[in-house]
């Protein structure tokens, strides 16, 4: 990785942290935060690999004890609680958003952006976060965890729309993802 890639990775880890400053709406046990918007933007702007690393770096910072999550929490506790699955899903979600974005880069538009952000930023996050809750308490069935997570859907849909609108415009103004196989002459 070039230093520039490291800087972009650090930048998006910082952006996710700053999104944690946006006041969260507490709905039951899991807060609705703006931070998953950061998951979508990291994948959409940086692509799969760097997006993944940005969210991984963010989680490392949380794990070593910096209170960067929206609730002002941090440390190792958040990684063992029942909602930890949502946290673990973030790097993977960003990776999937980035992967779809890269694959559709040459014809990228609002529709592709929405697809990428909904699949990576919502479906992947739910697919990992929901079963994790169920692991915690044997009696909490998948179905209950699944039903419970519906409160997040409207918020997540809004975030996917915002991320997609932003991603399409940033691609025009400052594209970071490179077209596959550009001439390798310029170093």
């Amino acid at each position, binding site marked *: 990785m070039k230093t520039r890639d490291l800087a972009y990775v650090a930048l998006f880890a910082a952006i996710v942290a700053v999104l944690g400053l946006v006041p969260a709406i507490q709905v039951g046990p899991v807060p609705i935060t703006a931070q998953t918007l950061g998951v979508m933007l990291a994948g959409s702007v940086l692509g799969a690999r760097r997006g993944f690393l940005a969210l991984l770096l963010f989680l490392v910072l949380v794990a070593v004890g910096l209170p960067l999550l929206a609730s002002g929490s941090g440390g190792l506790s958040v990684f063992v609680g029942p909602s930890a699955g949502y946290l673990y899903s973030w790097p993977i979600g960003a990776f999937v958003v980035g992967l779809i974005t890269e694959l559709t880069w040459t014809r990228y538009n609002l529709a592709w952006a929405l697809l990428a952000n909904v699949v990576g930023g919502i479906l992947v996050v739910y697919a990992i976060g929901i079963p994790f809750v169920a692991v915690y308490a044997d009696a909490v069935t998948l179905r209950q965890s699944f039903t419970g997570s519906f409160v997040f859907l409207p918020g997540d849909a809004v975030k996917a729309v915002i991320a997609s*609108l932003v991603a399409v415009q940033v691609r025009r103004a400052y594209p970071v993802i490179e077209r596959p196989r550009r001439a390798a002459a310029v170093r």
Partner: protein
Amino acid sequence: MTLALYVPVASPVHRAPAGVKLLALIAVSVVVFAVPTLPVVGGVLVAVLLTGLGIARLPAALLGRQVRAVVWWLLALAVVTGVVGGVASAALVVLRLLTLVLAAAVVTATTRVTELVAVVEWLCSPLRVVGVRPARIGLLIAMTLRFIPLVAERAERIRDAQAARGGAVRGIRAWTTTAVPLLVQVLQMAHTTAEALDARGADDDAPPARPPGRGRR
């Protein structure tokens, strides 16, 4: 790193190597899931509390804050498991979650950020094979901590500028009209930062003190 959750106390728990404490945390989480009986989980919880409050002399309020963060979960899990599996299984689920959260809180509060970062670097050392330089993790963390206030500050500036011209301050439009210029600005800033680091040798393959002959990244 002043915003860390570390609580300085001169105690054997604080002095214990970070790696040992992390291993102990892993051991705790394995035990409470592998042996799900009330005496075992309850015993581990007592041990965690003794370590945190007794030996490490952490303020009870600090551990209380960590519990409050999951209080909703405790309630929800207790109700759902209680209805399906009875009081005993509800108690088990609640104790298990409490034990894990408190054990993790004790490790976090007794271990300096720099020590944990060193563990992360050590964990990443096998990645050297795929071209990741563990020493770069310190640089990544430094950059992130530097970028956080810069991003927040620029976001504020853009919002002010837009409000001054009568732009939207709420809703989806406000988000996109702020986020697009913000991202473009901070991406440029990150690019310049990378150039500045390179100008001071950040992309040198390896410090010349090391034996030469390592391949290019």
